[in-house]
């Protein structure tokens, strides 16, 4: 069993949990993810690692509750345990000193950007970070990102905080000004797609981290496949990071929506029985 040591609600549906998993914490690198299962009837949920502490033996995850499982996970707090916690999975980010790097995170995508940005900074890069969200209440880890960035830009879609624009606007300006060697863009599919469209014009290498549907997460099932450069790739073993200019985001986003009706059915049932975790049995 994997114990939840800490939990913070950032908003009604965005939360952070610190989970005791020493073997995972000892091995993990920025860019990797974990798979967890809440209980015996639970599904295997892939989540990017937001932070880790090797000494304490902990992994931090940041989650947006959307379906039944992520709502249920949100109800768990300090002292509760998860049935399974597997990782680290996926290929680590390639961290090198390339010069100036933009790290853009959208919504909960800021969390997985954080360890990458920190590692890039430690490797000697100049790090310009963009923290973006739909509105102020959904803004994540602004302070943590500021600490490790040379420059920080905040944007909200509705203008409730920072610049009133989409993440692509400052991205375009920075590319236009020149001197950018590498870009990381992590967030919802649509955000990554438009970030890549923006940077393609300037021919700046842009890495994205894909959050596809997975089952085992170790290369066995092929659920996570995505089209990259015209070829089929498995996000769990070939990724999760890919050259964003090669990714077919339409295939990615379409595949992410495969189970919408089942997810709704499951969530409705869960809400109907008052969020009791075994209400369906």
């Amino acid at each position, binding site marked *: 069993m994997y114990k939840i040591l800490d939990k913070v609600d950032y908003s009604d549906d965005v939360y952070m949990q610190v989970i005791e998993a020493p073997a995972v914490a000892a*091995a993990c690198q920025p860019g990797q993810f974990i798979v967890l299962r809440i209980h015996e009837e639970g599904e*295997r949920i892939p989540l990017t690692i937001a932070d880790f502490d090797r000494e304490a033996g902990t992994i931090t995850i940041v989650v947006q509750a959307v379906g039944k*499982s992520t709502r249920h996970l949100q109800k768990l707090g300090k002292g509760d345990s998860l049935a399974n916690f597997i990782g*680290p999975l996926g290929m680590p980010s390639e961290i090198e000193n390339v010069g100036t790097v933009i790290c853009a995170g959208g919504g909960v995508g800021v969390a997985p950007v954080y360890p990458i940005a920190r590692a890039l900074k430690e490797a000697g890069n100049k790090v310009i970070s963009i923290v973006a969200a739909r509105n102020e209440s959904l803004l994540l880890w602004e302070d943590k990102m500021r600490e490790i960035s040379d420059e920080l830009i905040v944007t909200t879609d509705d203008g409730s905080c920072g610049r009133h624009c989409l993440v692509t606007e400052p991205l375009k300006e920075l590319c236009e000004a020149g001197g950018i060697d590498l870009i990381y863009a992590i967030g919802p599919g649509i955000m990554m797609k438009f970030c890549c469209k923006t940077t393609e014009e300037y021919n700046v290498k842009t890495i994205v981290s894909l959050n596809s549907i997975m089952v085992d997460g170790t290369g066995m*099932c*092929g659920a996570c496949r*995505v089209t990259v450069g015209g070829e089929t790739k*498995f996000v769990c073993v070939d990724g999760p990071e890919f050259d964003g200019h090669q990714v077919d985001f339409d295939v990615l986003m*379409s595949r992410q929506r495969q189970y919408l009706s089942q997810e709704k059915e499951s969530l409705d049932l869960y809400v109907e029985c008052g969020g009791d975790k075994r209400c369906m049995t």
Partner: protein
Amino acid sequence: MPEQPAKQRAANFEEVALGYNEDMAKLEASRCLQCKKPKCVAGCPVGIDIPAFIKQIEEGNYDAAIAKLKETTSFPAVCGRVCPQEEQCELLCILGKKQEPVAIGRLERFAADWSMTHDSSSKPQIAPSKGKHVGVVGSGPAGVTCAGELAKMGYDVTIYEALHKPGGVLVYGIPEFRLPKAIVQRECDYVESLGVEIKLDYVIGRTMTVDQMMDNGHDAVFLANGAGLPAFMNIPGENLNGVYSANEFLTRANLMKAYRFPEYDTPIKVGKKVAVIGGGNVAMDSARTALRLGAEVHLIYRRSREEMPARNEEIHHAEEEGIIFNLLTNPTQIIGDNEGWVEEIEVMDMELGEPDASGRRRPVTVDGSERRIPIDVVIVSVGTKANPLLTKSTSGLDLNKWGNIVADENTLQTSKEGVFAGGDIVTGAATVILAMGAGKTGARSIDRYLQGQPLLTPEEEEAIKAADEKAAEKAAAK
């Protein structure tokens, strides 16, 4: 052997074959001629003393029968169910020349099931501790067999399993109606009872590398991490929604129990009409699972029934249950709707030409035979490719051009000191019993390696040389 009627079983996930009762088992066992030089044993990849265990059944000594089986196999309840006996032990049974061969698999299953229901405590002898530790990667048939053998020899053994349940392909791949999961669990419990530790949720190559295993006190390692990545056909439309690999479809259904959604949280999409592509056992398992989930199922296979790699019994069961066979038919593309969901599959008729490298007649497309079949879900079951996760993270491990680990055929030794490998990761996808055979060979080699002995005895070297020469002569004669 009694079975659930086809109509009834097509609507449930209960086991199809019901097994012998005592009278039936004794009667069948009495047919065994107790040959002095039993050919059946030579046909068994793990060399079970078949006449001896059958004799015990005939005499009603079921405890002794299971003890005899467990001298050589850790998985009798599994092998009795899923081994291709008709191509192995039963194929060589002398009775088979004139009449039905002795039903060795069914008798094995009977003995194993009897010992489970009677809580028989037939534990093998465990040698005194040798004070050495072996790490086994993967808890499928190869890994568990190797671990069980090593434990009996007195080694400390830890199995590392990436999934949350032990059993490998036996839990994620083979459906409940062919191999109940409770049986796999009991076989794994048995290996644990021999002192083997099974660490779940532990991904070798990620949570810990093979090099770290060697640094962290493992004296030898056996890699049995399985076949891996599903293969696709590289035809247009394979990434549409509603296209599954057989591995994904079966994993959702078997391991994650998606057939009980929403009680279990993992969903599965089946729709009204399912196309399963392929002709192997995995294709049959996928088709029969889809059928039980309520679909009309079309199996699409590019050769004829004769060339199908699946076991006859499985093909027969599938036919009985109402799977629609589209033979000599090959898919050319999958067509989707505006939302990215599968809508149709385009296929072409095939004819059989000259034999190809596999020895089977090569299918050739019939020009102008394209047609489309409306379909909701496609399950691709055309095999697997080597999983790169472990091999990429291990230094000094030689791989072949397909990415499988290169291991000596007779000793399973790899290019890396102290590391042995067997099962699907070496051979590509094969059968449960062949993987178990590899597990036994791996255990024998590891034991000799850790005792500082040559991996092969002079007699074994002689026998291998003789067999090689014989094979060369045969090839030359051709």
